[in-house]
Structure formats: C-alpha cells, structure tokens
C-alpha cells in the first residue's frame, strides 16, 4: 500500500466510521429511533424523496434563489472593490459603510426585506445579495490594492486609460482574491438562505427542514440537512473548476 492510498483511506475512515458507529448504537437499542433516526432510515427516506421528485423540487427552488442572489450581488461588489482600489475618494466613501454594515447578521434584515419585497422569491434573493456583497467587496478591494506597484507603472507608462486599467490590469490582478471572496460568498449564501427559508415560504430546503421539525419527521430533517451540504459541495467544486479555467497564469 502506498503512502497516498493510506492517506485516502484515512480520509474516508472518520466519516464512514462515525456513520457506522451511529448505526450500530441505534441497532443495539441505545437511543430512541423516533427522535434519532439511524443512517439507514435517513438513506431510505432520501431515496423515497428523490423518487417522488420532492427533493428535486425543493433543491431547485433553493438553488434558484442562491444563484440569482449570488450573481446579482457579486457584480456590484467586484466593481465597487476595484473602484475603491483605483480611486481614493471612492474608498473613503465606502469604507465606513462597509465597516458598519458588514458585521450586521444579514438574517436580521429578513423582516425588513419581507416588507420591501414581499413573501415571494424576491425577498430571499435580496437577502442573499446583501450577504454576498460584503465578503466579495472586501476581498476584491484587498486583491486590487495589493497588486504589485510595477503593474500600475507599466500601465501608466504604456498609455493605459482608466478604463483599460480597470478592465485589463486591476480586474485581472485582483482575480485570485476575488475568487477567494466568491468561495466565502457561496457558503454564506447557503447559510443565510436556508435560515431565511425557515419562515415565510412554502418551498426550498430550509422550508423542508423547518416543516419536518414541526411535523416531528426527524428523518426528513436530516435529509434536508444532508442536501444542503451536498448542494454546497457541488457548487463549490464547480466554482473551483471555473477558477482553474479563468486563472491559467496561477502557477501550477
């Protein structure tokens, strides 16, 4: 066995071991299966919900809200971050806003957003927008502000206009940090959205989890929780692939 396969095994042992232990304890009669379902119960329920299309429906609703909010949020965040790095007055203008609004738990805005956008998808998407904006604007600014001084010099000496500097120098220079911000933002989108879906909606994974709590269907609750993890994992893998494609100069 090579060191690499050993490492891979070790990597799998902890999660599989945990699930196994959980299953065995419940089969041995330790714990109440009505409140703590066994992994096999959850797996069965998972399969049922996939077969009935219920899980796909709730996942689609959640994914739509996450990605709509994500894309609406990151575009202005990237633009603002780059402009902050390029122009001091822009930075001075935005700094106090960011410093004071970033630490507010975005879920606390949900009642306000419900008033503004109603009970439909719009209020959930708006919440994701507010949550995504801050990590991306801060990372973009830091990335752009730390671009090596020589690139500004080259741009200036070679006659680049402000718009060329923005599009061809600062944006690309900041891109690795922008992607670091996007990764955080993606995780944050799921976090706030699932919480938001606990109230004032009849669809989405968050609704599924909350509803099953009210009906005391603990296995469904677990299905919802696992689904959030799976959706988060898949979207972050996709984001990483995109990053690899658009940043070919990052030394391999």
């Amino acid at each position, binding site marked *: 066995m090579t060191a690499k396969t050993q490492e891979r095994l070790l990597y799998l042992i902890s999660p599989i071991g945990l699930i196994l232990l959980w299953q065995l304890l419940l089969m041995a009669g330790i714990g109440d299966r009505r409140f703590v379902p066994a992994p096999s119960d959850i797996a069965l329920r998972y399969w049922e919900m996939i077969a009935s299309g219920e899980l796909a429906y709730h996942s689609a609703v959640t994914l739509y809200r996450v990605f709509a909010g994500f894309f609406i949020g990151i575009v202005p965040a990237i633009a603002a971050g780059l402009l902050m790095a390029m122009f001091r007055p822009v930075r001075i203008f935005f700094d106090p806003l960011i410093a004071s609004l970033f630490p507010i738990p975005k879920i606390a805005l949900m009642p306000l957003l419900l008033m503004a956008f109603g009970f439909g998808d719009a209020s959930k998407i708006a919440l994701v927008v507010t949550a995504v904006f801050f990590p991306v604007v801060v990372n973009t600014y830091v990335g752009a502000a730390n671009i090596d001084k*020589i*690139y500004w*010099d*080259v*741009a*200036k*000496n*070679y*006659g*680049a*206009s402000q718009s*060329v500097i923005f599009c*061809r*120098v600062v944006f*690309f*220079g900041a*891109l690795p940090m922008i992607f670091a911000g996007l990764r955080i933002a993606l995780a944050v989108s799921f976090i706030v959205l699932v919480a938001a879906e606990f109230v004032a909606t009849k669809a989405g994974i968050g609704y599924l989890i909350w509803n099953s709590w009210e009906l005391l269907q603990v296995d469904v609750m677990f299905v919802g929780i696992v689904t959030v993890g799976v959706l988060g994992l898949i979207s972050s893998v996709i984001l990483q692939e995109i990053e690899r494609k658009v*940043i*070919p*100069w990052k*030394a391999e």
Partner: protein
Amino acid sequence: MPVQRRGAAVEISELRREYVSGQGSVVAIERVDLKVAPGEFLCIVGPSGCGKSTLLRILAGLDKQTSGTIKVDAAGWPVENAMVFQDSGLFPWMSVETNVRFGLDTRGVPGDEASRRVEAALKLVGLTKFRKHYPHQLSGGMRQRSAIARAFVTDPGMLLMDEPFAALDAQNRVILQAELVRLWEQTGKTVIYVTHSIEEALLMGDRTVIMTAQPGRIKQIIDVPFPHPRDLLQLSASAEFGKLKLDIWRVLEEEVNRARAELEQ
C-alpha cells in the same frame, strides 16, 4: 528594420527632486543638467540610492520633479518613451503576445497593423514560438526579451531602461546585452540605460554619466571611445576596455565609500 529615423533628443536642466515625508525631506537628485543627442545610447551609473532610478522615472512620467525642466523632442514618433523595468513587469495574466500588444491597444492602433507589428517585434527578439506562453512559463531572460519587445513595438522616441538585466545570470546577461546593442544599432533609438555596473555601461553606451551618492548629482560624463558596431565579447577582453573600466572605478569608488560612510554614521 532599416534605420530611418534617429531617436528623440532630450534636454534636462536644473532638475531637482525632493521627497518630503514625516521624518523630514530627502533630496534624491539635484542640479542635474544633461543633454542627450538623438539616437544616443546613454548609460547612467552610480551607487545605490544615487537617484538614477528617480531620474528615469521622471523621464518616464511616473514621477514628477520638484523643480527644473525636461524638454523631449520626440516629434515624429508615435510614442515619446517606453520603459523596460528591472523585473520585466509583464502582466502575469496575459500571454507574451498580449503583453507585447498592450502598448498598441492602449493607443488605439488598428487590429491588423497591431498584429503585424507584434509579429515583427516577436521575431526581433526570437520569441515567435513562445507567443502563447504566460510569463511564469518563461525563463528570466525570455521575460526580459518580451519586455524589450513590448517597448520596441510601440516605436518610441526613446527607450528608458532601469537595470533590465540585473536579475539575470551572467550568461544570459551577456547574450541580452549583445542583442540590445544589435537592436539599437539597427533602429537608432535614443536609449537611456540605468545600471550599477560600470562594465555594462562601457560595453553598451556612447557616453556614461557617473552620479554621486545622495543627493544625486552628475559627477562626471565620460565619452566611451569604442566605435559601433561593437563585438561586446571581444571588447570586454581588450586592454583599452580594462584600462577605462579601472579609471572609472576610481571615480566611482569615492562615491561608493562616501555613501557607505554616510550610512554608517
């Protein structure tokens, strides 16, 4: 590329640059008077911190003098100057080709003309095969060649070079020096070349300006007597070259020691 035009003429008078900060002020250069003839290859040598880079940055428009004037007669050239930096300054996110094209895009040179000129510039520095590579895939010498191509392609009245070969290994430095001199002999551009190496200055330049340590002033200007075209290797092995190098080192030595003494105070 036949020599059709000579480079820009430069006249610098009473140039002074003072940096003011919280800790007080530092005079980087003062009383710099210098005339550069069209098509001249001028080297500037001096100890670290003598303001030679400051002078170059002012010429490049990246810094502003506190007082004094610079007159550049670059009429007839599309671009007044192009700078080659010590660490190539190639954008890591652009391929060699896109990097070389940058100064043409920013100035709105039409597509096919730009492509044609980039093609020629890449050929000139022998990088046609590497046009799609990113800078991190190239050696240090190839990166500096790309940077030189990026400067030449804009057809500048003068080339400003800030120790462009200082970071290269000895073999690559010799090769690139020879290539630069060949390019200069072919194109006849004005070159202002900053270096800390006397040898490099004497090998390549028509004249060598020796600067004093802080504040940077012109201590002496030496006419380099070797005719062009030059064979750099042969030249560097000749007795006259060795003699001149020694003479200049004597002048520079004082300055280096003075700069050191000031630092140790």
